[in-house]
């Protein structure tokens, strides 16, 4: 039975080396026994097709061989839930840290666009490397854990009382927050790039800026506004990695709106936002341009104050409504218990 030798050779290629010959000897004896029974039933030797059918029924050589291996998974079922938890926690955190560190480089580098693109292109690499390291650590842990006596997994010591309180943000969506964090990071990078590349905000009009002077209050406005957005972005990013922080997210959002409204109100007190520079006067630029710009900016800040106050009021109403809803009350009661 030449086919049997070829079949056993194929199975042998996938067997553990130590037991290979013994297993093949046993398989040969069992298969030949089956063939003999079949021949006795038919009263004649098997045809090639019938031999083939016997081997086919025995199973694919790769599958048959692999079933003799003692362990066929990288991370076992006892550790797998913790592995997934680690992936979900560490990867967003690694992405946030990588983005923050790289965005900080913006302040020290003049070529801001390159840095922004660098941050974006590095994200898939950070995700890949974090996942690879977590997988290596967990597969090692899975290998070592059964061989160490009295070794307990740190995650096993959880206590119900240490679980995070019920979140105020009941509509929290992980995917939506990831999207918001990424979009906000791009927006923030754009905002922080403006001092180095004014073209990013003004477009072709950036070349005309030498003919105008800006009020010194603009600098304060710019940095305070960037700080408010950074804090909000950081708060969103932290909630991805630390679910316990989700309860503070609505408060951070409201504080951000209040601060923005206050900042815009402060800007409304500035008498003149922009005026012609000496170069502008010498170049004979129209004095009505800064006049129109000042009116437009004043109006823009007024609209900004109104919008942020309306948003803030709406969020406060939503929060009060949620707190008085039966679902939250019962959760609070459970918390008290």
């Amino acid at each position, binding site marked *: 039975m030449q086919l049997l030798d070829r079949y056993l050779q194929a199975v042998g290629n996938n067997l553990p080396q130590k037991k290979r010959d013994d297993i093949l000897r*046993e398989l040969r004896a069992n298969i030949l026994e089956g063939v003999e029974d079949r021949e006795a039933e038919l009263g004649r030797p098997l045809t090639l097709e019938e031999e083939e059918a016997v081997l086919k029924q025995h199973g694919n050589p790769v599958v048959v061989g692999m079933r003799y291996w*003692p362990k066929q998974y990288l991370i076992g079922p006892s550790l797998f839930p913790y592995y997934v938890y680690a992936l979900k926690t560490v990867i967003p955190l690694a992405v946030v840290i990588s983005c923050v560190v790289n965005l900080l480089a913006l302040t020290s580098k003049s070529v801001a666009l390159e840095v922004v693109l660098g941050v974006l292109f590095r994200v898939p690499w950070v995700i890949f490397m974090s996942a690879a390291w977590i997988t290596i650590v967990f597969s090692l842990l899975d290998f070592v854990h059964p061989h160490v006596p009295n070794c307990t997994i740190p995650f096993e010591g959880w206590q119900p009382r240490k679980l995070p309180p019920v979140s105020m943000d009941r509509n929290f969506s992980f995917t939506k927050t990831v999207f918001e964090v990424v979009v906000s990071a791009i927006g923030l990078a754009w905002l922080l790039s403006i001092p180095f590349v004014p073209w990013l905000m003004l477009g072709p009009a950036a070349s005309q800026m030498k003919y105008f002077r800006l009020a010194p209050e603009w600098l304060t406005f710019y940095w305070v506004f960037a700080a408010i957005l950074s804090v909000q972005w950081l708060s969103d990013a932290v909630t991805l990695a630390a679910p316990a922080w989700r309860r503070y997210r609505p408060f951070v959002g409201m504080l951000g709106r209040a601060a923005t409204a206050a900042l815009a109100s402060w800007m409304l007190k500035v008498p003149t936002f922009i005026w012609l520079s000496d170069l502008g006067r010498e170049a004979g630029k129209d004095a009505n341009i800064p006049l129109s710009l000042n009116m437009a900016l004043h109006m823009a800040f007024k609209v900004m104050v109104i919008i942020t106050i309306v948003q803030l009021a709406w969020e406060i109403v939503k929060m009060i409504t949620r707190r008085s809803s039966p679902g939250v009350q019962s959760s609070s009661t459970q918390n008290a218990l």
Partner: protein
Amino acid sequence: MTPSKSDNSNDVFENLKLELRRGCLVLAVLSQLTVERYGYTLRQALAEDNLAIDESTLYPLLRRLETQGLLLSEWREEDKRNKRFYKLSPDGKKVLAQLLAEWQELNKSLNRMLREV
């Protein structure tokens, strides 16, 4: 083409049936090895009792049970062919008794519950 609902429920049933049988497999194999047998005759004995098992599942399972100390094996010649015979080890006998007790308890509970359905 998307699978129909009945295809899906058939798949679910097949998977659940497989899981149910897998749970009983070790008990069935151990129970058949109170007398010495080799792989091929063990498979036949199980099939005769309506518990057919693929060769590619049964033979590695025998090796695993032997590694766990539940079976003993030896090569011996029978009908002019060398065969590997398996039988329960003393530990295997203890584990079989424990598993049987567990199985009977489970069976009792299930029968009670199913009577109420």
